[in-house]
């Protein structure tokens, strides 16, 4: 198997506060292979976006990467000097943000924004960059691309703007794109179009995607593997079908249970009692233990590591195995 395009090991992100450092990401590890789509799900505040921000090297003060390693195509990037990391951004890692309405500079023509990005990363002349810009807009499905270069962002609809954002992220053919809730701010009908577009682009370019979302439906449609995050840690990670179909971590099971239509129809829509702890108020042992209905003594004392269960890995001392699940029915 070829080495992963992105490899994150024991990532720790901390925020300096009045009361000392606050750990927002606590020992996250995962790999993404070439052309693979990894979905990252979890409640808001679980650290999904922050993980993406850390990978692209844009964690801002008072936050900082306090531990771990990030490797991109075999090269360690979390320790790169500022300017070299800047060259990596856009060139090797692209990023798409949640809200297309605020992601584009409102005062600059989208053509200029594209050309500027292309010329930052390649030696293209302005004319070449312009041709590439037209090509990119066509590729993301913007009609009359050549004329639209002269338009300002406010002249596009939300869905069209997200296409422009995607074109900008793809400008220098990155190996991996981090898509942070790319469809959340869009209408449902437009969401499907953008998902289809992302799917086509990964297929055509062999590009890897780290897809951050809280929408399991989106994950089910497009992702190859999925990582479930809880309170700054990965609770479970594995192929989408296994994680959705046979979750081992009680939190994953709860998350699936709270989504209508994903599991069997007769199962009642469940709600996980309580709320996810904030960073700084995370209990010792397993972060999920106060809300877990399978909690055992060990969960309160010892933090579980990810260990393999079938095709997936889960961080749980009392995982749901098929036998116990069936016995419970």
């Amino acid at each position, binding site marked *: 198997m070829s080495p992963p395009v992105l490899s994150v090991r024991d990532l720790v992100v901390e925020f300096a506060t009045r009361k000392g450092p606050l750990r927002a990401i606590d020992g996250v590890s995962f790999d993404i292979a070439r052309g693979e789509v990894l979905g990252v799900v979890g409640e808001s505040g679980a650290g999904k976006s922050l993980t993406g921000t850390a990978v*692209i090297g*844009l964690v801002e003060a008072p936050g900082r990467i306090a531990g771990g390693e990030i490797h991109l195509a075999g090269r360690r990037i979390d320790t790169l000097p500022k300017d070299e990391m*800047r*060259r*990596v*951004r*856009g*060139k090797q890692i*692209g*990023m798409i*943000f949640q*809200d297309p309405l*605020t*992601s*584009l*500079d*409102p*005062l*600059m023509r989208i053509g200029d924004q594209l050309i*500027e*990005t292309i010329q*930052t*990363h390649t030696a293209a002349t302005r004319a070449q960059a312009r041709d590439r810009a037209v090509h990119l807009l066509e590729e993301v499905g913007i009609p009359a691309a050549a004329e639209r270069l002269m338009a*300002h962002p*406010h*002249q596009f609809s939300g869905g069209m703007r997200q296409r422009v*954002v995607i074109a*900008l*992220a793809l*400008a*220098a053919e990155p190996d991996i794109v981090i898509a942070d809730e790319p469809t959340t701010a869009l209408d449902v009908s437009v969401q499907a179009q953008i998902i289809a577009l992302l799917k086509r682009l990964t297929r055509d370019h062999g590009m890897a995607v780290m897809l951050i979302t809280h929408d399991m439906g989106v994950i089910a449609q497009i992702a190859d593997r999925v990582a479930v995050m809880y309170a700054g840690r990965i609770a479970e990670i594995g192929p989408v079908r296994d994680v959705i179909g046979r979750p081992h971590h009680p939190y994953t099971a709860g998350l699936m249970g709270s989504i209508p239509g994903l599991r069997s129809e007769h199962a009642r829509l469940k709600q996980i009692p309580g709320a996810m702890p904030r960073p700084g108020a995370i209990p010792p042992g397993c972060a999920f233990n106060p809300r877990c209905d399978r909690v055992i003594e060990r969960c309160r004392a010892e933090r579980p590591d990810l260990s393999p269960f079938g095709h997936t890995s889960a961080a749980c001392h009392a995982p749901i195995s098929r036998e116990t699940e069936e016995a419970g029915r």
Partner: protein
Amino acid sequence: MPTHLIRRLFEAVLVLVVVAVVAFTLFRFVGDPVNQMVGQDVSIAERERLRRELGLDDALFVQCARFIWNALHFDFGTSYKFRQPVTDLIGARLPATLELAFAASVFAIAIGIPLGVRTGIHRDGALSKTIMAVSLIGVSLPTFLIGILLIYLFAVTLHWLPSYGRGDVVNLGFWATGFLTGSGLRALILPATTLGLFQLTLVMRLVRSEMLEVLRTDYIRFCRARGLTDRAIHFRHALKNTLVPVVTIIGLQIGSIIAFAIITETVFQWPGMGLLFIQAVQNADIPIMAAYLMLTSVIFVGINLVVDLIYHFIDPRIRVSGRL
């Protein structure tokens, strides 16, 4: 877009009419024009004749219309104190004030914007913090104290620069300029610095806070995520996006520069409109006050209109929606 501009133009005219009515009220009712114009020994019959001649017996709105009509023809009546047409008095002093205001604005903008950008980008640097602390002192010091301080330092103690007046001026017919002589330029330095310092700190603080604001936006984060250079992000994207509010404030500040010129002109005995105005306030010389009020409001409203036009060049969104 034209409708928007027409509406703005209409609003501007409305403001000017309101100001003219206020000026007329001042002129007509605050102090009796006749008593101000003639001595104690003039007979009542004489006064009545003068009153008729001046049209003070006509209906009020006729008087008001006449007042505005005259003002439109640059006729603001006669100064009580100087016994000269107000237009001549102001005309002789306008160039001095405009040159002072111009020099002060250039000083404030040319230094204020770069400092604001710098302190905005490196918000936690030692230099930025020092600059911000000093700027708070600049905002807090009354203009006249700054002027006095500068005079004491550079005129009284060091004898480098003159402490009062305009120096030699070159008369270009309708305009007496101090820009063309060495002594004129030297005389300009201290007053222009005094007048511009306050605006400089304002411009700087505004640019800084706008930069901080813009640097937090999603599109700047997206620029960073695309690997654009800091230079491109700061100057091509961030600075441009700060310009709308900055241009507004700078426009308004040019208005207040003309108002603050009153103080600077008093400190430096600069022979401009402000000095004339303050003497008018001291002497309750209403025609000069009324004329000054109208003239400055024309300048302020004009600047506001120009600022509005500049928006259209900076921000494409306004071209469509009419406003932000």
